[in-house]
């Protein structure tokens, strides 16, 4: 099916890729159907695009891709129950990124990732129990902190 998207205009998507977020993204409860849009040039970032509101799209990043196993989300009972899982590792997680004019200052919301089941594509913006995670972490600094440089050039 064809949909209108904020970053790429009209694109063709597979209906099976639609993620149903019943409660919406917090603050945007009226949008409940989303799709992840990824293109190689933008990796590891993707767009979480609303199908209900073409102008609504969030920049997201897979926290494990940038913070590796240093990211240890602890989900509360209500969130697990709402998603129908028993453990966080049964879920795909994406964190919402705020990219300001100077992208070096981008921040990532580690506290409230969007979680969904890979097969069933049911999702929810969850609120983690981790007290150490905030809604605004400077992503570049966080990567440095959690992944100490091995020294030397890449």
């Amino acid at each position, binding site marked *: 099916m064809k949909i209108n998207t904020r970053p790429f205009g009209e694109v063709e998507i597979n209906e099976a890729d639609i993620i149903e977020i019943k409660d919406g993204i*917090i603050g945007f409860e009226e949008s409940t159907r989303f799709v992840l849009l990824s293109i190689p040039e933008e990796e590891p970032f993707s767009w979480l695009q609303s199908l209900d509101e073409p102008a609504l799209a*969030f920049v997201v990043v897979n926290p494990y891709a940038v913070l590796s196993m240093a990211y240890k989300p602890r989900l*509360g009972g209500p969130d697990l129950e709402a998603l129908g899982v028993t453990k966080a590792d049964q879920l795909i997680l994406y964190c919402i990124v*705020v990219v300001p004019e100077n*992208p070096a200052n*981008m921040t990532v919301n580690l*506290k409230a990732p969007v979680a969904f089941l890979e097969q069933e594509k049911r999702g929810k913006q969850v609120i983690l129990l981790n007290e150490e995670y905030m809604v605004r972490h400077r992503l*570049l600094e966080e990567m440095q902190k959690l992944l100490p*440089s091995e020294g030397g050039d890449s």
Partner: protein
Amino acid sequence: MMVLTRKRNESIMIGDNVEIVIVDVHGDQVKVGIRAPRSIAVHRKEIYEEIQAENVIAAKTGPDTLSGLGNLLKKKK
């Protein structure tokens, strides 16, 4: 809004299965214990409002393209 006065270790029941216990009081800080079924989400009000505000900013400020953003991350590794 209903207002109740409670002392340390006293509690309030909300319905049959939510209990709010006043664990400790120190000056203007109150430590509250909440006993509730797993299906009931308990969060500080501020965190919910913070997430909402951050989502609004995220929805408003996204750039037109993310090309090149990944390079910023690589430089830091």
